[in-house]
């Protein structure tokens, strides 16, 4: 039994890295724009399709392909923010962004169905199915690489937010958009770039999703969004490190429950969210502590 528990913990940590890659963009966008991007699930799937296209058509390695898909998704994110999110004003803005981002999801899903069809695709590379034997466990390279990438990306985003002028502008906008405008920050530009960055990092999450999920089609995003939302709420809305911590926590918990009662794994996933929020309403790294840094 001890071995099963260790295996479940290892699985949870590694799978948590994958979920963190999918969730950091969502929490970053919320942190700056105060909107829940319902399209995050389909953007993950889009990232998977872009990686699939490069791998299948041009034989570009999945990780190397990120050098193309990440900038492409950044441009898409900026375009979405500029075209659909930025024009929304007034008191109904938050609720309207839910509808608009849902509409964006439907549009992207429709395009994917038209271009790629409904058949299930899977991302393949040598490291997707191969594993290394460490400490008595087979650890799949894809999860190891993905976890390292998640940590690096989180650190890079922290560096961007806390070590650059743009990051100061972002944090100022997160704290008070009106005050940020008053001191000369172009908050529209900050919002567009942040949305772009949030969507760009989702390309990495999409690649990992496509390589580890057993397959995907344009409909695969719907199961994801509720789990990603739970993760960013638990981590603390707007907290990038919180998204990583919450992903690892939730997926480890789920893996442990899988040992005894897998049918309860999903329920426990959300029950844990409720319990943690009862004790700590702002999640692990809620907005106030993050913004105080």
């Amino acid at each position, binding site marked *: 039994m001890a*071995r*099963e528990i260790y*295996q*479940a913990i290892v*699985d*949870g940590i590694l*799978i948590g890295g*994958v979920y963190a890659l999918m969730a950091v963009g969502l929490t970053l966008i919320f942190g700056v724009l105060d909107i829940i991007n319902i399209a995050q699930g389909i953007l993950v799937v889009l990232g998977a399709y872009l990686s699939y296209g490069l791998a299948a058509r041009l034989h570009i390695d999945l990780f190397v392909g990120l050098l193309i898909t990440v900038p492409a998704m950044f441009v898409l994110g900026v375009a979405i923010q500029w075209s659909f999110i930025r024009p929304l004003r007034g008191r109904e803005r938050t609720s309207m962004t839910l509808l608009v981002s849902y509409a964006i999801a439907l549009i992207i899903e429709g395009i994917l169905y038209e271009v790629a069809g409904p*058949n*299930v*695709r*899977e991302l*393949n590379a040598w490291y*997707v*199915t*191969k*594993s290394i034997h460490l400490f008595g466990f*087979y650890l*799949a390279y894809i*999860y190891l690489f993905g976890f390292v990438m998640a940590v690096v990306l989180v650190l890079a985003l922290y560096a961007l937010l806390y070590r650059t002028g743009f990051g100061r502008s972002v944090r100022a906008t997160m704290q008070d958009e009106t005050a940020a405008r008053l001191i000369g920050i172009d908050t529209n530009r900050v919002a567009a770039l942040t949305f772009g960055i949030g969507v760009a990092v989702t390309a990495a999450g999409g690649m990992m999703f496509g390589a*580890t*999920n*057993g*397959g*995907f089609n344009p409909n*695969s995003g719907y*199961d*994801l969004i509720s*789990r990603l939302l739970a993760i960013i709420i638990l981590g603390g809305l707007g907290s990038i490190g919180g998204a990583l911590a919450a992903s690892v926590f939730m*997926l480890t918990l*789920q*893996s442990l429950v*899988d*040992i005894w*009662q*897998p*049918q309860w*794994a*999903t329920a426990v996933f959300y029950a844990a969210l409720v319990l943690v929020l009862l004790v700590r309403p702002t999640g692990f790294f809620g907005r106030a502590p993050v913004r105080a840094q």
Partner: protein
Amino acid sequence: MADAPFADPPVQLAQQMLSALGVKTVYSKIFPAEVADYKAPADQVAASGAQIVILGSTDVPTVAAFMQAFEQQHYTPKLFLCAAGPDQGSAFLSAVGKGNAIGMMVPNGWYPGFNDPASQTLISEYVAKYGGTPSGVSADVAEAYSVGQVMAQAITATGGTDNAKIISYLHGNVTLASVQGPVKFDSLGENAVSDAFVFQWQTGDVFNQVLPATAAGSKTIIGTKPAWTS
């Protein structure tokens, strides 16, 4: 097995039959059908070292995720049967790879090699229109086409689309024709005259009927699944 009404019955029946033959169950768990990541339960199955895996799957991604996790764990069961997934033709092959597909089995009532003139016409016309090979045609194609055939016969017989008349007709002990073979609904709405077989992906990207071994059209089963090839 997934918590799904179409995935569980064949698994539970197989478990009962195998238990009666003295086969010991080393792992039997139900997981939510909507679970987004199967690695943890798949790793538990691999750790059990079971010689036979009967997966109550609902679709290709579920099966592909288990296969991927098994390969990562350097674990290949001798027999690997799935409630659904391997019957999806080219969609299954493209997801798991042709080499890994060899030995994968699935129960069903129809396959592209089904010896029925109408079925063979459907297959040839389908391949002519969409390309690929006969083995690459998903069972969903025949199932959907059969629904249309049954409805067409019911509408013709009742002279219209009156729902009550069609229901009465279909439950009226009538035997209808379909590309999957004869259709005759019992009081539960199940096809009482359908046959059940087990099919297997075999070398050469072909999807063959293998069980019952004595049934007409059955090929020799691959009794030990080859090692993963990716």
